[in-house]
């Protein structure tokens, strides 16, 4: 009885092993692959198409060894009407270079026509959203920039202090790519101005920002960005900036077509100097056009 049982078990085993030999091989490589990938980090990528959400920073950096060149324009308000071709006659420009030093550090410089402003910035990924070896659901990025106004002194005969022309920005960008198509972030921000117009204006302005990205197709997305100033001084004069844009991707270029009540292309202008009132039709059209160049080829070593 026992013998017969063993015999039939073995015959069964034999039959199974023949019919499933290929599946056994599949199971084997599946197991080996899982074993191998257990210790790998699988980073979430491209939560936003570029390193900008609209005008301010997204949680993305320029990739390691890549140089990004961006030209941005902001035109006059659409409510200027046909005489100014809906604002197109009135254009501010900023161009910027950003470079990815490695996977987590990016540096950049920019120049805006408004106030003949030069700016420099540094962006560091502190935490990267990932799965695999570790499960981290969010990314945290620190961003800082300094900007200097280089207009000629309004009154050269007065004693002018160069330090008065500097402004600084510090931001923490906390975001998550929730799915292939949807990403969101919040961006607590502080702007420091060395000189303010009146004694009532604060040198430090705190704001809470946020941005979302929703893909419409594989190559088209819509982004919305908003900053809320946490102080209420000068609320009548300065508005909270609300912007949205379409990201259009064509190979190495990304076009961002922008509608916003803000006209500045640097943080201090965007957050502390936006005067456009959406209710009054103060909506500016603009665009960012970015092109990336690969400086360091990562596959050369492979």
């Amino acid at each position: 009885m026992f013998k017969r049982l063993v015999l039939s078990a073995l015959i069964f085993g034999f039959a199974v092993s023949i019919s499933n030999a290929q599946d056994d091989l599949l199971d084997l490589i599946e197991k080996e692959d899982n074993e191998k990938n257990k210790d790998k980090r699988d980073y979430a990528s491209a939560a936003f198409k570029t390193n900008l959400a609209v005008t301010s920073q997204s949680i993305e950096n320029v990739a390691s060894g890549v140089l990004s060149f961006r030209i941005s324009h902001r035109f006059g308000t659409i409510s200027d009407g046909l005489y100014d071709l809906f604002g197109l006659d009135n254009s501010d420009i900023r161009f910027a270079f950003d470079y990815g030093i490695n996977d987590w550090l990016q540096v950049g410089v920019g120049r805006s026509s408004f106030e003949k402003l030069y700016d420099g910035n540094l962006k560091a990924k502190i935490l990267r959203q990932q799965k695999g070896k570790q499960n981290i659901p969010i990314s945290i990025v620190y961003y800082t920039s300094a900007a200097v106004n280089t207009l000629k002194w309004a009154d050269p005969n007065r004693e002018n202090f160069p330090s008065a022309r500097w402004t600084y920005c510090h931001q923490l960008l906390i975001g998550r790519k929730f799915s292939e198509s949807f990403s969101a972030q919040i961006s607590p921000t502080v702007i420091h101005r060395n000189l303010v117009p009146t004694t009532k204006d604060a040198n430090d302005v705190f704001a809470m920002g946020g941005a979302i990205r929703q893909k419409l197709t594989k190559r088209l997305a819509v982004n919305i960005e908003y900053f809320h100033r946490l102080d209420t001084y000068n609320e009548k004069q300065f508005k909270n900036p609300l912007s949205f844009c379409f990201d259009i991707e064509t190979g190495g270029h990304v076009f961002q077509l922008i509608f916003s009540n803000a006209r500045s292309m640097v943080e201090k202008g965007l957050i502390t100097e936006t005067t456009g009132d959406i209710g009054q039709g103060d909506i500016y059209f603009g665009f960012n056009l970015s092109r990336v160049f690969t400086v360091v080829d990562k596959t050369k070593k492979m």
Partner: protein
Amino acid sequence: MKKLILSILALAAFNVFAQDVYLTKAGNIRFFSSTPLEDIEGKSKDAVSALNTKTGEIVAQIQIKSFRFEKSLMEEHFNENYMESEKFPKAVLKAKILDLEKYDFSKDGEQKVVFEGDLTIHGVTKKVKLEGTIKKSGKNVQAKSVFKVKLADYNIKVPSVVTKNIAEDIEVTVDFPYELKI
């Protein structure tokens, strides 16, 4: 007699892998798209594959995200727009050596073979026939193959603006260095 049958069966049932299964966890796969406008090359050395020289079976899989490109943006587009690697994380080959009885894999040397089976890329499975070589030297086996993959066959869509940059047929080069498993 009974004992003999019993032991043969026992051997067969529990020792399917004995002696003839070769494994690699560092298989090289390279693909190349060439057009007058742009050459695009993706490389990975992370394929996992097993080859059973007794049954002629070969299986292989590769994580799509393991491919590296000259330009980071290519890698991003490859994963996000073309291969949709979140949805279809790996490509799998399940094939058999045709006319296995013609070959002798017990001795060293290189032999030309044809694999026939199923190739799954981007969630689409197609029957394929791949020409290649198998070279045995001691406990190592090296399998190589170069074949074409037609993007349209695997439902990989190329938008009209970049049709001049991406070839319709992609050349895939496979080089698997196996070692004896047991």
